[in-house]
């Protein structure tokens, strides 16, 4: 029950739906990014049962009707976004860069564009989408094969000044951590530093003093607690209280890899560390 003079929650809800419609219509938000199912379910729940008072009931009914109308607008906006786009009006008119660039490389792989006839029904659209998706999955597989074949041809390895310096300071890399893989470690560090640059805690926190043994101990503890592979980037981000500590922890990981306490694996583009068995 609402307090005297306070707007009912369901009226607030209608206002919120209206705001969503404005944002979608203006293009401020992509309809594909909005979970309409949840939004509308919450709206229905918010309206609940009609009030017993006849005057309030009339307001409730008209508001609920309006909310349903706005919800259908939202669904329509999303449906339009999901449906195949009609032929663009500017196609073939300007010969501009975009028109040239729009032509898919390697032939028409999608099968959705350049259709003479509009899809007859939703099932037809779905079938075409499924076919396009299947072909892109196949393209992905073939790209992977191409990468595999090409990886057997190696260019000359460019020496990395940073790696050479680390090797001079920390000692030679172990046999199972060749310079090329160490290069990936440095890339991972660069990414973590990039991510932490944006974090407030990293920007404003005072720089802590370094205790080498403590850093080594923290890495060991995290790896032991996980009991399996630990994502290196996540370890650095979660463990470091300051950007400079990221570098300290990174050097600690390198040291533990170098002395053979840890080993390094790569999966899905991420580097994982774990205790050497």
């Amino acid at each position: 029950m609402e307090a005297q003079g306070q707007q009912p929650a369901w009226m607030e809800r209608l206002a919120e739906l209206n705001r969503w419609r404005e944002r979608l219509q203006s293009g401020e938000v992509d309809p594909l990014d909005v979970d309409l199912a949840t939004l509308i379910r919450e709206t229905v729940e918010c309206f609940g049962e009609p009030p017993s008072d006849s005057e309030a009931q009339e307001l409730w009914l008209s508001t609920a009707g309006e909310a349903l109308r706005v919800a259908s607008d939202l669904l329509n906006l999303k449906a339009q976004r999901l449906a195949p786009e009609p032929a663009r009006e500017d196609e073939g008119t300007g010969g501009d860069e975009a028109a040239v660039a729009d032509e898919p490389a390697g032939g028409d792989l999608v099968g959705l564009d350049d259709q003479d006839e509009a899809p007859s029904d939703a099932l037809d659209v779905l079938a075409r989408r499924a076919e396009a998706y299947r072909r892109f999955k196949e393209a992905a597989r073939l790209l992977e094969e191409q990468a595999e074949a090409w990886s057997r041809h190696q260019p000359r390895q460019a020496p990395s000044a940073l790696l050479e310096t680390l090797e001079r300071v920390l000692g030679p890399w172990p046999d199972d951590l060749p310079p090329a893989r160490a290069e990936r470690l440095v890339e991972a560090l660069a990414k973590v530093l990039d991510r932490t640059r944006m974090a407030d805690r990293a920007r404003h926190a005072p720089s802590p003093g370094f205790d080498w043994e403590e850093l080594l101990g923290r890495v060991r503890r995290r790896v032991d607690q996980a009991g399996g592979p630990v994502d290196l980037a996540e370890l650095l981000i979660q463990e470091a209280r300051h950007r400079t500590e990221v570098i300290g922890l990174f050097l600690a990981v390198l040291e533990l890899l170098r002395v053979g306490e840890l080993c390094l694996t790569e999966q899905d583009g991420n580097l994982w560390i774990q205790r050497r068995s």
Partner: protein
Amino acid sequence: MSDEAAACEAVLFATARPLSLEELARALGAEEERVRQALEELRRLLDETGRGIQLVEVAEGFQLVTRARFFGALRRVVGAVRRPSLSAAAMETLAIVAYRQPVSRAEIEELRGVNSEAAISTLLERGLIEVAHRAPTPGRPVYYRTTRRFLEMFGLRSLDELPPLEAWGMGAGPAAKTSP
């Protein structure tokens, strides 16, 4: 071997990335046509004498790379790292960008049927795709395209070498112009 071919070999050996014809011509102080002939001579010589390296055209440039048949020996020393290690989702997204570029995130998600933000971020981080432009439509959606690094990583001379899917499906070989 001519002086020009030897000079091309020296410059390409000292450079880890592919060099364009223009860059080579500038380095050698010679006409592009002359450099092209020198590169052809170098390629022929490397092939005919059974050398362990070969000259390939990749990413709109020229590069000296090892021959595939020595990969096993090489791997034991440097490891195989140039291959992009991507998740299935990222590879799928990359294939869509490669064949449909320029393409927006919404279009990618329409095709994949799932949120592709993480996959796109990974590809941007790895330098395999980049922002092509923003469309002058409401919301100014970002359109993506592949990068020169993509061509390098996949051994493609240019996007024109992305073969039609049908051709690949029929068992055509990889696009890179290399020999074993």
